[in-house]
């Protein structure tokens, strides 16, 4: 029977332990101090710096880089974390190539931006390695706030509220906090259990009680929370997934990409994770890339991303596209699934070529069939479990200003709320800003 890459079906152990360890090591290695100093020296300390404008959390990037340059990475971290308490994770997962580093004047000048993300990681890692928490709580206000969902938005909101002296109950439906930082996101971007370590470090601020296994409709209700707390912040993410609506969607071997990624992130033995020999991922976003690349890193022989529009429209950035290609993933554009083929288990997928006319995808009638024993669906997540009575907008909880919902004393932020890109850094900004608004409201009378 064939081994490794060539083993048929969805099987474990395609690669050796060493190969797995190497494949899932840090995507970008951490800077050594001298490397950081050299990288920091490249920053021009721009006036009204474009990188800051491009950062959803408005980190004073030139200042923190200057602090690294003068030998005080801990001070740099303080600058970062005062704006973005998850600065450590954002340094790892932010698509910097479309945010701060795209705006860097050195990107314009020479195509080589200051490596802001890696510098941010250097600063935050240095500070976090001390094991202490850099912020202290203000005097207790006696106010209590419920935060529903312990992903980036919820954690950010809870931390800011706790810092301002409020007591926070942080509810999480899963077994541990962290949200997509813990359960989503490619493993090579958050190595050594960083997400969990960051949450532990964040909670050292005090005043935050985490209750897992609690969700709206499952032990929690918005009415009860409103009655028990002075304010409520909803950061419940997008728990639903879009359906493919193609024949054969229920065949064995067809899965949601987010489930695959979650299994992978929670596994303590990646070598034991089964993966197909011929894997097709439907979609074009970060989730599609994360699933495809990791399938390839687990030892799948052929991994294809099938995206229904052209390369330019792909939500995954050019950096992510290149990463996928470098890891052996084939990118197919202008193809959409017609049918998943197989009898009980997947054996292939039929794709139809597309044209985009006036922004709409249309099949050309021509099809191609790929051999597949595993198909991942990564065609977007949807809001699931929003409480009744809260107005929605475009499938998300409608918010105005700093996360105010249609219901008094209820705020929302992160992927579940309208507005902003579905990024960790955006969620952190929304959680923080809602916390400031909640604080203003709670202390105004």
């Amino acid at each position: 029977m064939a081994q490794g890459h060539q083993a048929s079906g969805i099987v474990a152990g395609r690669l050796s332990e060493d190969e797995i360890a190497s494949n899932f090591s840090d995507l970008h290695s951490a800077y050594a101090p001298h490397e950081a100093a050299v990288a920091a020296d490249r920053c021009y300390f721009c006036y009204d710096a474009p990188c800051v404008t491009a950062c959803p959390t408005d980190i004073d990037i030139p200042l923190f880089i200057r602090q690294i340059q003068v030998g005080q990475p801990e001070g740099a971290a303080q600058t970062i974390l005062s704006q973005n308490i998850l600065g450590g994770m954002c340094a790892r997962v932010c698509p910097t190539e479309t945010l701060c580093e795209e705006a860097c004047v050195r990107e314009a000048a020479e195509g080589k931006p200051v490596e802001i993300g890696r510098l941010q990681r250097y600063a935050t890692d240095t500070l976090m390695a001390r094991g202490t928490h850099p912020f202290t709580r203000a005097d207790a206000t006696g106010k209590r706030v419920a935060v529903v969902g312990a992903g980036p938005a919820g954690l950010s909101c809870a931390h800011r509220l706790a810092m301002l002296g409020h007591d926070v109950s942080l509810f999480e439906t899963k077994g541990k906090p962290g949200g997509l930082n813990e359960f989503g996101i490619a493993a090579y971007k958050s190595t050594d259990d960083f997400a969990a370590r960051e949450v532990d470090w964040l909670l050292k601020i005090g005043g935050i009680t985490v209750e897992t296994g609690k969700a709206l409709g499952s032990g929690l209700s918005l009415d009860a929370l409103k009655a028990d707390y002075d304010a409520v912040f909803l950061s419940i993410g997008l728990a639903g997934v879009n359906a493919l609506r193609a024949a054969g969607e229920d065949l064995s071997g067809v899965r949601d990409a987010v489930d695959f990624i979650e299994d992978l992130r929670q596994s303590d033995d990646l070598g034991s994770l089964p993966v197909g020999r011929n894997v097709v991922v439907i979609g074009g976003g970060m989730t599609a890339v994360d699933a495809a690349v990791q399938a390839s890193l687990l030892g799948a022989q052929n991994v294809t991303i099938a995206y229904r529009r052209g390369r330019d429209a792909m939500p995954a950035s050019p950096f992510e596209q290149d990463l996928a290609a470098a890891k052996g993933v084939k990118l197919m554009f202008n193809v959409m699934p017609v049918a998943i083929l197989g009898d009980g288990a997947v054996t292939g997928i039929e794709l139809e070529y597309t044209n985009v006319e006036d922004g709409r995808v249309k099949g050309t009638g021509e099809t191609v069939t790929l051999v597949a024993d595993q198909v991942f669906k990564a065609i977007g997540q949807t809001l699931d479990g929003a409480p009744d009575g809260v107005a929605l907008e475009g499938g998300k909880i409608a918010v105005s200003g700093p996360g105010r919902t249609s219901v008094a004393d209820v705020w929302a932020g992160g992927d579940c709320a309208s507005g902003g890109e579905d990024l960790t850094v955006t969620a952190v900004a929304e959680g923080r800003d809602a916390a400031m608004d909640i604080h203003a409201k709670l202390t105004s009378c």
Partner: protein
Amino acid sequence: MADLTTDFLGIKSPNPFWLASAPPTDKEYNVRRAYEAGWGGVVWKTLGSEGPPVVNVNGPRYGAIYGADRRLLGLNNIELITDRPLQTNLEEITRVKKDYPDRALIVSLMVPCDEESWKAILPLVEETGADGIELNFGCPHGMAERGMGSAVGQVPEYIQMVTQWCKQYYSKPVIVKLTPNISDIRNPARAAFAGNADAVSLINTINSIISVDLDQMAPQPTLDGKGTHGGYCGPAVKPIALNMVAEIARDPETTGKPISAIGGVTTWRDAAEFMVMGAGNVQVCTAAMTYGFRVVEEMKAGLSQWMDEKGYTSTADFIGQAVPNVTDWKYLNLNYVSKAKIDQDACIKCGRCYAACEDTSHQAIWMKEDRVFEVNDAECVACNLCVEVCPVENCISMEAVTPGEVDPRTGKVVQGDYANWTTHPNNPSAVQAAE
């Protein structure tokens, strides 16, 4: 390939790059390797009087300041003159000179400031066959506490006196090495030439404390908890050295006199700048200490290429060429008006020019929509700060306003003639034009 041969005081060397008296020239082993590496000449590390040699501290002896990527910009040292016996040095000098007749070999000397001491050592040096001597009147640390080095160089009368003794008891060229730790470099230079020196060399190191150890609360280099001031050198001191060389080169009392320039020479360009400013050659130390002897290859190749590009066939063609253009501030043309101009295609929109001008200069740069930076001619005095802080070379330039046009800053028509402060109406001591 241009001919780099130089004739300095009748001493021929295949190129103008000499190693300065310093640790790299402390012994035969180094000097032979330096010649093999291509250095045109060597000034042997300073010899002292016969008898028990001086004792150096074990170290650390050096401190440094850095630019980006730990590029060494400035070095200071607390090392004294040679700590090897005089006889050993003299024997080595003799052997080396015999083996390298085409290279310059100068012996640096520092003995007590009395005639007997000089009278004793000079014949011994003469016997080595070395091409000349350099009087170390410059070192600011250690030896100065004993009345030598810069302690002599700071008293023009002593310089003249010792130089005269040397000319009396030694037949070959005498170069006087000057200390920059003095308010007006022209005085010691005049004294040296008054004593019949053949040349001056400058600068020796600048008195300095290069940094402080904030844990030990002591100057660096820190030796068992204490530190002392040392001699500062390297690329950072070049501007100070250039000015001092120029001051001597344009001083009516010393103009045209031979100068060997020292102070931060790191590249061919540094050497060319010193030479057009009046130096007949240059002496190098920190660059060799930072990069090794091989660095001279770039210097030679670079100077040669530049000479070819400019059509110079000999170093004599360009030595001193910039001296006539060094003038006093009062003779600068007050009618010359220029304005900064930002090349929008080259601009990368960092805004450093704006921050510099708005915060610290004349509020003459506008920041417009989409980070477009433009100069407001009505405020621009052409100070050049924006040019200096701009990270893009040639992005901002100074463009002269054509005479006849109105300067929007002053509202006055720009004059084509030359006018300076000496005749300016605001100058209380302005020279009145004849009635």
